[in-house]
């Protein structure tokens, strides 16, 4: 209760400060919605490989954010009703694009959220640009969204391939893992990851002995040729950039070949809690990885995770938490702007500095719309150390927000005004 009060006070002060300081927008928090209601649409994979890590539960997270927001600011916090729509894009770019267009045009959606699969995310960014409506990407990792495909109405929340490489690549190398063998799925995401990791490892004084692509999609689930090669190369670190189901197979085979006993450490590029559930905690124990957030990292995160658990029966992945946080910050921006007009909201978001349970030291870069924030280096615990179900990992260290973000000079974004 005390925390809520303090939070409300802080927000009030902030609203007052913004309103008074810049003179932009009404300061009292009265919001005028253009069509009498606010519509937030969540487009993601609800039936395929990414259904667990975001999917339906990400929709629940957004609904939670709306309910909590109303609980905090009152039923009429946004000057009208708030509707949450959702669609399953089946990981197809054309379906995603059509749904986005339809939501913006026909349902008057003010915001689209989530969208895993980079080709789908990039397609929606294009729609946002032409429709002049907001899109906050959460689950797609491609840096193109804030690079060559950046636009005024698209924001990138939570994580990207640069953050993952900076975190895991540098930390593991500094801890003594100097020689790396990198295996990656041979498509855009994997190649981005390979490039980013190679840079990070080399910059930290390490050395990539070799890197090999695995076929994608890998329908047989067989990675033995690469893992046998790892056994011959004897690097200190095996860097696996595979994601989701592929990663699960790599880890299982890594254990079967007993590479750990040969002192070949496993570092993974991208790991969701749902992957750990699939492989089993002990199979991954000791693995170091980068994540924007862990549900068990501190009290306020746990408070969210408890509420989430009650509602969905699982602990949230960082994608779930990020969807909640992004929806929340969007609604805050509307209150500051006093309107749901996309241009006014973009103006409020650009250059905004904030903290919430998910984002620490947050700053919305106006130049490329990357939402920079602290990232975490985490390590999977053995099951014996877990205090409860879903207690998978512990925080090893924190990467400062500016270190976890791609330098603007490398982004290659020319933001149209």
């Amino acid at each position, binding site marked *: 209760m005390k925390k809520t009060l303090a939070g409300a006070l802080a927000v009030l002060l902030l609203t007052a400060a913004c309103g008074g300081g810049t003179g932009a927008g009404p300061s009292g928090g009265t919001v005028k919605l253009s069509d009498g209601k606010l519509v937030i649409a969540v487009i993601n994979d*609800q*039936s395929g490989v990414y*259904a667990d890590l975001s999917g*339906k539960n990400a929709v629940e997270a957004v609904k939670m954010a709306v309910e909590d927001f109303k609980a905090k600011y009152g039923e009429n916090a946004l000057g009208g009703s708030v509707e949450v729509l*959702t*669609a*399953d*894009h*089946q990981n*197809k*770019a*054309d*379906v995603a*694009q*059509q*749904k986005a*267009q*339809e939501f913006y*045009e*026909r349902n008057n959606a003010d915001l689209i959220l989530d969208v895993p699969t*980079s*080709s789908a995310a*990039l*397609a929606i*960014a*294009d*729609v946002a*640009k*032409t429709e002049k409506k907001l899109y906050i990407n959460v689950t797609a990792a*491609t840096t*193109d969204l804030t690079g060559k*495909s950046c636009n005024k109405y698209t924001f990138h929340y939570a994580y990207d391939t640069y953050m993952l490489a900076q975190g895991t690549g540098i930390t593991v190398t500094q801890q003594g893992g100097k020689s790396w063998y990198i295996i990656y799925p*041979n*498509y*855009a*995401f994997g*190649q981005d990851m390979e490039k980013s990791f190679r840079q990070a490892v080399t910059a930290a004084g390490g050395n990539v002995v070799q890197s090999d692509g695995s076929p994608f999609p890998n329908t047989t689930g067989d990675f033995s040729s690469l893992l046998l090669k790892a056994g011959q190369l004897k690097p200190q670190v095996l860097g696996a950039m595979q994601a989701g189901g592929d990663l699960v197979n790599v880890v299982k085979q890594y254990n079967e070949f007993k590479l750990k006993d040969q002192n070949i450490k496993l570092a993974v590029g991208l790991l969701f809690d749902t992957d750990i559930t699939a492989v089993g905690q002990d199979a991954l124990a000791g693995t170091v990885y980068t994540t924007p957030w862990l549900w068990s990292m501190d009290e306020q995160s746990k408070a969210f995770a408890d509420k989430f658990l009650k509602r969905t029966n699982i602990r949230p992945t960082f994608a779930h938490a990020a969807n909640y946080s992004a929806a929340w910050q969007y609604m805050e921006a509307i209150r500051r702007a006093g309107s749901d007009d996309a241009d006014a909201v973009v103006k409020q978001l650009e250059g905004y500095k904030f903290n919430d349970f998910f984002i620490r030291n947050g700053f919305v870069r106006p130049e490329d719309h990357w939402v920079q924030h602290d990232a975490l280096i985490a390590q999977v615990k053995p099951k014996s150390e877990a205090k409860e179900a879903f207690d998978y990992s512990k925080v090893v260290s924190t990467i400062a927000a500016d270190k976890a973000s791609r330098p603007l000079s490398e982004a290659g974004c020319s933001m149209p005004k």
Partner: protein
Amino acid sequence: MRRGLVLLPYAVGIAVALALPRVMYPVLALDILLWGLFAMSVDLLLGYVGLLSFGHAAFWGLGAYAAAIAAKSADIPFALAAILGAGASALLAVPFGYLATRRRGIYFAMVTLAFAQLVFYVANEWRDLTGGENGLHGVPRTFPGLSLGRSADFYYAALPLITLGYFLAYRIVHSPFGHVLVAIRDNEPRAQALGYATWRYKVLAFVLSGGLAGLAGGLFALGNGFASLDLLHWTTSGQAVLITILGGIGTLWGSLLGAVIVLELRDALTSAPEASGVVTGAVFVVIVLAFRRGLWATGRDALRRFAAPPVSARIDISGGEVRHGRS
């Protein structure tokens, strides 16, 4: 009087095509017409030459990529870009057809599938040109004197070109050339004995079919503003075959009907993901069981029996099918 009756279905068809974006979402309406044309190109081979191509995604995808690259790199009218896409696909169909038509049946299907996979992997690896997994985005669509920003505008601008595609398919089927194709389908040795170089006919049919698929794919990329790797995936070939079978093999217009069902179903199920597999499967099973020859053919025959049993055979209201005795 009779002439009027023959033209009636076309008038209805055009009226429906014009009204479509008003009753349904214009992007979806455009997709239905384009998938219809794509499936028609498959039907051209499957229904009229008896060749099941399982690799038509190669032509649909190549058309899309060629049109997208042309529109992105040079500021040309969308119609020209789409025709370029069709040309590129027809060109690719020459070597593919040359090799694939030496086989029939399952072997033909396998060879076409292999070729399509080849194209898929080339597109995936050639990232500088195709954007790899991310695809090509921000494809512009322009035409001098027209503003095509809204999807409904583009629908009407593309309609003449799509209609031209349908007309071409119709003409191919109803020409002497089309009749030779049907003869080949029914009995190839007999057609050879009559003096036709059947293999050449088959290659030409393959090239025409590839070109039509490329036209549809090119317009798809321009209409949606992107070309992605999905378009080249083997499941895309599968979907085209599925649409053809649902609508009715060897009916041409059935492909359009199939496209309506498949795409409407896909659209409706995006908001009910847990049911998508079950519902789609069930609908397909019912259609295949209840409409043995596809929706179009079964529906038309029922209509005929109902309307005017004895004389109706003379008025082919489908206007689509070449009916030759397969004794």
